[in-house]
């Protein structure tokens, strides 16, 4: 694991004026880079593009340009389908994005002779025959706020971030605005918890501020263990300073002495880039004692998780930070009363905190103007499955699933027929074709048994057997159960056993009733959120696709052929 050193050229800022001067200097440097007469080549490097060889492209670009140009290591821009990509800005042209490319394409791309690989111009105007990137169907219906800097700034450069507006909100709360006003703006913005719960952040902050115990802490929950979501990883990799700024604002607003960011251990690049951001901000004097001469103190610690899904639950997360097994506890007391080290602790999701800087700068009203009645602002989404394009996108709340799947993600791949979409990670049921016109927000989906959750959607096609899929989802919860309370520890394995029986063609119709009864026990008696929703996807599957379950039980056949109904005896033991 990296122990990053702060960039040695950064000064230590001790006053308001010094910060403003540094901001000006960073902006001037940024403008000079884009208006200069050197070629600027930026390669999108994120964990998804590294898997496809982005580092080789970066090396090749460095060799190719040498001293004659600037090569930048930016992050991915969310569009996985065009990775690895390179953006080339020639002195006489706007920045043009090319992808997907191989290292061997790099010389020609930099020379400007491979227009066939060009995807678009970063900006809003076309250049010659190359259309603007924002007109591409993948980007046209997005509303980038949090992802505004994705693929634009170098995540390891605090100067890039500051030139693009980072720490403006932090500056505002330090010098121009009272803590109460800041919390009022967050309340006006009606920003709701993005981790899936949807609890209003303003109310949480308010009670955090009112808590009498000291010291207080702010914890950013960046542990996304769901088997299909990587929006927080993308945010960390592309714009770590935005998250850090959000946490620091929360610390000042709630009067907390120390901020934490708890990142899942399976994201080495995200951890590395975030640690670098913290080291640079500390060096610059934005974290520490007497910040910019205001007399305010905030310390910061980065902690990493060890791959346990349940640690996304706030109380389990705090136990994990404290170096014990991440097992949730009963509430009350809530964590704003008694959290980390038994002190008042405000815990927010990464995406929620990443929204904060813009809300402080532009005001709550501005933010509340976006989105729907009950869900304001934008939401990061990931759609997976056999789609034409894949990636992370940011859309305004209230977009329909149809727009999301068919316009942005380009519909299903050839040869695949839409069968359904699993919503809310492993915590809610599937939706089918008839639900695709429903607007996506916190409230509408719940009415039909779906869930926005953390914004992960998994589209499945005709080749997926729902009994097998339900078993997969239940087995995930079985595996991830922390084993603290009995209903979850024993109930989930029992459900998997019943489902295995059905998969093997030995189920009876009574089993469906048995599933419902067992599920009821798990839902009502489990201690934490994991157990309370563990059987919900299974119940949703039965609800939507009861015919298919019955065919397994009554006709002893699996319509897709994925269940081992006719398997020889020796194959009957599942591999996991």
């Amino acid at each position, binding site marked *: 694991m990296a122990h990053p050193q702060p960039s040695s050229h950064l000064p230590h800022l001790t006053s308001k004026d010094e910060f403003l001067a540094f901001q000006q200097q960073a902006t001037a440097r940024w403008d000079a880079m884009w208006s200069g007469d050197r070629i600027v080549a930026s390669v999108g490097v994120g964990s998804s593009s590294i898997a496809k060889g982005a580092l080789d492209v970066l090396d090749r670009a460095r060799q190719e340009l040498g001293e004659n140009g600037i090569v930048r290591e930016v992050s991915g821009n969310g569009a996985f389908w065009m990775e690895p990509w390179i953006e080339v800005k020639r002195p006489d042209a706007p920045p043009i994005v090319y992808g997907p490319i191989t290292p061997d394409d790099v010389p020609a791309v930099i020379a400007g002779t491979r227009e066939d690989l060009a995807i678009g111009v970063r900006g809003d105007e076309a250049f010659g025959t190359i259309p603007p990137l924002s007109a591409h169907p993948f980007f046209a219906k997005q509303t980038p706020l949090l992802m505004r800097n994705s693929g634009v700034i170098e995540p390891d450069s605090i100067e890039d971030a500051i030139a693009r507006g980072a720490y403006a909100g932090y500056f505002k709360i330090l010098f121009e605005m009272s803590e109460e006003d800041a919390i009022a703006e967050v309340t006006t913005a009606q920003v709701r918890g993005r981790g899936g719960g949807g609890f209003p952040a303003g109310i949480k902050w308010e009670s955090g501020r009112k808590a009498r115990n000291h010291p207080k802490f702010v914890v950013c929950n960046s542990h996304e263990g769901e088997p299909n979501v990587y929006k927080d990883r993308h945010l960390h990799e592309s714009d770590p300073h935005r998250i850090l700024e959000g946490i620091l604002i929360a610390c000042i607003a709630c009067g907390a002495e120390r901020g934490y960011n708890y990142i899942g251990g399976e994201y080495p690049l995200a951890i590395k880039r975030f640690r670098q951001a913290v080291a640079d901000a500390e060096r610059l004097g934005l974290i520490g004692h007497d910040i910019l001469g205001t007399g305010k103190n905030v310390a910061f610690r980065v902690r990493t998780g060890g*791959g346990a899904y349940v640690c996304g639950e706030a109380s389990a997360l705090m136990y994990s930070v404290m170096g014990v097994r991440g097992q949730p506890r009963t509430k009350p007391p809530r964590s704003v009363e008694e959290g980390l080290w038994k002190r008042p602790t405000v815990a927010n999701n990464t995406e929620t905190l990443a929204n904060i800087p813009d809300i402080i700068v532009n005001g709550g009203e501005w933010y509340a103007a976006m989105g729907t009645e009950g869900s304001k602002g934008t939401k990061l989404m990931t759609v997976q499955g056999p789609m034409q394009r894949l990636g992370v996108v940011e859309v305004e709340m209230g977009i329909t699933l149809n727009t999301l799947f068919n316009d942005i993600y380009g519909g299903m791949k050839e040869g695949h027929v839409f069968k359904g979409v699993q919503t809310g990670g492993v915590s809610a049921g599937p939706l089918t074709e008839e639900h695709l016109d429903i607007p996506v927000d916190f409230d509408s989906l719940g009415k039909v048994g779906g869930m926005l959750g953390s914004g992960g959607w998994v589209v499945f096609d005709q080749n997926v057997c729902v009994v097998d899929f339900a078993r997969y989802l239940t087995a995930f919860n079985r595996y991830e159960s922390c084993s603290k309370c009995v209903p979850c520890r024993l109930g989930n394995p029992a459900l998997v056993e019943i489902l295995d029986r059905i998969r093997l063609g030995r189920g009876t119709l009574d089993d469906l009733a048995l599933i419902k009864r067992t599920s009821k026990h798990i839902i009502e008696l489990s201690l934490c959120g994991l157990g309370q929703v563990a059987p919900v996807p299974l119940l949703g599957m039965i609800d939507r696709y009861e015919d298919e379950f019955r065919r397994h039980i009554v006709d002893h056949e699996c319509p897709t052929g994925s269940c081992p109904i006719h398997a020889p005896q020796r194959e009957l033991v599942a591999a996991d």
Partner: protein
Amino acid sequence: MSHAEPVQVPLPVPAPFTGRQEIDPDVVRELVSHFTYSDFEEAQELILSALQEVNEHFGWVSPEAAQIVADHLGTTINRVYGLLTFYADFRTEPRGHHHLLVCHGMSCYVQGSQQLIQTLQDRLGIADGDTTPDQQLSVQVVNGCLGVCDRSPVVKLDDTYHGPVDSGELTDLIQRALAVHREEAQHGASAAE
């Protein structure tokens, strides 16, 4: 998926184990020395990070390494083992020479990762967390997401991602890796002579 009698593909004769299995206590001490703390609260917060560092470096955490971490942070090995066995990222047994991660995220699942796991079980006789008896290959099923969903179903063999792969391609891939390794070992042996 057909359920015909699975074809038993013989694996190439594996070379002797050359992977980094032994844990050098001095290296562990060097690794944990970066974790400094001012009070016991902070020391406790560092246990997981220190273990991760060791786990990342060696691929597993031995009882001896766990004791060093415990001593450095002023806690007990019982507590350290409690964490090692709770969190899925840690291994308490050495990895094989090659390490295979099979992504079992939902995106990979809907595109066939279940069959890959079944293939490993049927053809190689290894399941999640197992190592082949000759220490050549260890397998870990990632119950989260490797984050390369446009290549699903995806596997990561050593440092390279491969995807999309089907059962046959996965078997090929493993055989090739083991065969290359065998050649290298033979080559190395002849060069030494």
